[in-house]
């Protein structure tokens, strides 16, 4: 390694205070500068931040946007989510591959461009999509792929690739992206007009305890998936002992098919920051962190601008809005490609510069969270609701929705429908109504709440979107009758295998085993007993896993076994001969046959 490179790494570390707590920022910066984190680079970082080498390696090796081997100056990450596959990302992939002369996971011979797959980047309504470094390219065609490669090869900078501009703030010069919002149905809570400071003014006129009571009266529940009552969460954090308290907004949005937070961040960031500030006031925190998934880096400058505007307007900083003694500011923490970091304790690990392993509970974040201090973690949409509750009142909010599920819910609908995009609906809306709004002509199955949710069959389309019936973090994927559902299930399992943190046995091993047997069944090598095997194994993984990832990862299989059992039954057959159905002599002999022929 040459001197200049060494100096660059050292400089990056010192820029982040040589603080190992800033490991994510350091690693991201080093990755961007050197195209990889390996060998001596790790030693220099370790030395600069006074951490053991292996600890740096531990964090760096966890995130898929950080690479343990050299990558090109430009990394093209093509989304291989099921929706992209439905939109024939395979053709786009072939075009990239052909034009670059490399396969996936490879770098061009001149070391300039790397081609990779990546899971859902939150652009399912405009698939196929790719990240070119942090630029988002959507609705890709083979022609686009060829143009992109040609532009890059001609020496054009990745951020100057020609493209149209999207609507709303996507066209703003700080975003300058071709992403479109697709807000198909604005509702009263999130997408109604908003005056910065209105909700905050009301909140600061109350005591923190009164603000918390408002959340309770409004019956606000978390929008991130688990549906925990927000008032209660804030109360726990408010009453917990700590030197300092933190408010973290979970903008990791990694559940495939979910892209509603992306639209909030684009169009209603002010509302979100207002919600975070109100949360800060309610729990007694002076510091907020927006944990933004690495895939949404393109929104960062826009978000920084709004934070700046709020500081200037006195809505952030010391004595917020003139309230003596209430200081609150927000910083952005970037992620680096790890679905598990959406799990709140893994997210905290990541904010602390560690690998994104979830933490043991108890203690819960409200007691001991970020840096061991009481911490509120809320979803983007939840915090927006909180701001609106303070602006318009708890009673106003709870007039929408149902008794157990007050307010509206943002749904991100994609797949086989004519109007994919974001819908703000009242809780209690039936799935069939959503399908109608989205103009889904032939819905044969709907995956509600992403792979971790449920594959719903037509007989259940009249179920209602709500915490007590069809709960969803927002993802609604529609599949028509021509789709290979078990193929989709297999994709979902691959996703969980790749995204498991690997900490606990059932999730780390069990998902691999589930997928193995599913593959056997799909290739016609399954027998009826294999369905019981899948059921039992799936239940063990669900029951024994340590965090929400493993506790839901068998759902693609378990919910299709329950709701689409006939698909499995059509594939399995009792073993006829002596050999087990799962043993395939032909494939077991494939290598030997190949060798015998060649020799």
């Amino acid at each position, binding site marked *: 390694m040459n001197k200049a490179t060494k100096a660059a790494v050292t400089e990056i570390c010192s820029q982040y205070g040589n603080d190992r707590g800033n490991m994510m920022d350091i690693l991201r910066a080093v990755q961007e500068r050197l195209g990889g984190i390996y060998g001596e680079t790790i030693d220099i970082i370790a030395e600069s931040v006074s951490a053991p080498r292996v600890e740096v390696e531990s964090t760096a090796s966890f995130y898929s946007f950080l690479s343990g081997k050299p990558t090109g100056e430009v990394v093209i990450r093509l989304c291989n989510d099921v929706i992209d596959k439905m939109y024939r990302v395979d053709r786009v992939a072939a075009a990239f591959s052909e034009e670059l002369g490399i396969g996936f996971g490879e770098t061009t011979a001149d070391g300039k461009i790397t081609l990779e797959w990546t899971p859902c980047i939150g652009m399912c309504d405009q698939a196929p999509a790719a990240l070119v470094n942090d630029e988002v390219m959507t609705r890709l065609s083979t022609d686009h792929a060829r143009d992109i490669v040609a532009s890059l090869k001609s020496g054009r900078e990745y951020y100057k690739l020609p493209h149209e501009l999207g609507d709303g703030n996507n066209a703003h010069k700080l975003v300058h992206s071709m992403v479109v919002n697709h807000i198909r149905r604005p509702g009263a809570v999130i997408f109604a007009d908003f005056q910065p400071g209105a909700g905050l003014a009301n909140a600061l006129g109350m005591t923190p305890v009164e603000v918390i009571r408002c959340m309770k009266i409004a019956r606000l529940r978390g929008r991130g998936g688990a549906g925990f009552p927000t008032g209660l969460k804030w109360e726990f954090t408010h009453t917990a002992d700590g030197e300092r308290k933190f408010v973290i907004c979970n903008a990791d949005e990694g559940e495939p098919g979910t892209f509603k937070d992306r639209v909030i961040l684009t169009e209603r960031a002010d509302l979100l920051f207002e919600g975070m500030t109100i949360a800060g006031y309610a729990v007694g925190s002076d510091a907020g962190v927006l944990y933004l998934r690495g895939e949404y880096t393109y929104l960062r400058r826009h978000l920084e601008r709004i934070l700046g505007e709020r500081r200037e307007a006195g809505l952030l900083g010391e004595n917020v809005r003139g309230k003596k003694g209430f200081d609150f500011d927000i910083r952005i923490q970037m992620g680096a490609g790890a679905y598990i970091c959406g799990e709140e304790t893994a997210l905290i690990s990541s904010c602390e510069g560690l690998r994104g392993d979830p933490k043991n509970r108890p203690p819960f974040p409200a007691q001991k969270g970020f840096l061991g201090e009481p911490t509120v973690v809320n979803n983007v949409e939840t915090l927006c609701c909180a701001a609106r509750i303070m602006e318009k009142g708890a009673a106003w909010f709870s007039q929408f929705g149902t008794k157990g599920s007050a307010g509206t819910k943002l749904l991100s609908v994609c797949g086989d429908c004519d109007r994919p995009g974001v819908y703000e609906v009242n809780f209690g809306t039936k799935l069939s109504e959503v399908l109608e709004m989205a103009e889904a002509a032939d819905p044969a199955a709907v995956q509600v709440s992403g792979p971790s949710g449920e594959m719903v069959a037509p007989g259940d389309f009249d179920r209602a979107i709500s915490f007590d019936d069809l709960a969803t973090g927002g993802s609604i994927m529609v599949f028509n009758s021509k789709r290979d559902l078990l193929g989709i299930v297999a994709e979902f399992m691959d996703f969980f295998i790749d995204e498991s943190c690997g900490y606990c046995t059932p999730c780390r091993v069990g998902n691999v085993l589930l997928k193995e047997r599913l593959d056997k069944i799909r290739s016609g090598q399954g027998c009826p007993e294999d369905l019981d095997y899948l059921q039992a194994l799936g239940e063990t993984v669900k029951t024994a896993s340590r965090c929400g990832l493993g506790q839901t990862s068998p759902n693609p299989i378990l919910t299709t076994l329950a709701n689409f059992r006939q698909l499995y039954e059509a594939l399995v057959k009792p073993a006829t001969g*002596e050999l087990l159905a799962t043993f395939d002599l032909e*494939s*077991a002999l494939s290598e*030997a046959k190949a060798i015998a022929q060649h020799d």
Partner: protein
Amino acid sequence: MSLLDIDDRLLKLVELIDFDKSPIDDIKSFSGPVDIGLIEGGCSNEENVHVLQEFRKHCKILISIGDCATMGGIPAMRNNIPLKECLDEAYINGPSVHNPGGLTPNDPDIPLLLNKVFPVHEVVKIDYHLPGCPPPADAIWEALVALLTDKPVTLPYELLKYD
């Protein structure tokens, strides 16, 4: 072969049973239906597969005996190396190999190797397993006696061993 370790009890056993196909009487094929089949060794080539099929076809009960049968055993250490590399090492590159022709044997009479060594229960249904390397003779004895006297086959703690 660890069956022979049951020593003089073999004589008692002989009174209870007939050997149909075994290395003890050296009969190579089944002469009719059989109650119990004992299987040693992992399943590593085409011929092993056929033997397992034959056993499954003719035996009411199959017992896998020994670690090679139950988990692949030492031969399974080749399982994480591509077959081609294994063969090249064995026939061409190995330090003690003299093979000027540089070819791996390719006689159609030599059974083809499977991509990996399989535990036998991943190939055919196995009713009972007696792990161990070798399994304790007492374990084999107890299992056989239990089966012959219609009692459940359970290994006491001291007799369940993987080494």
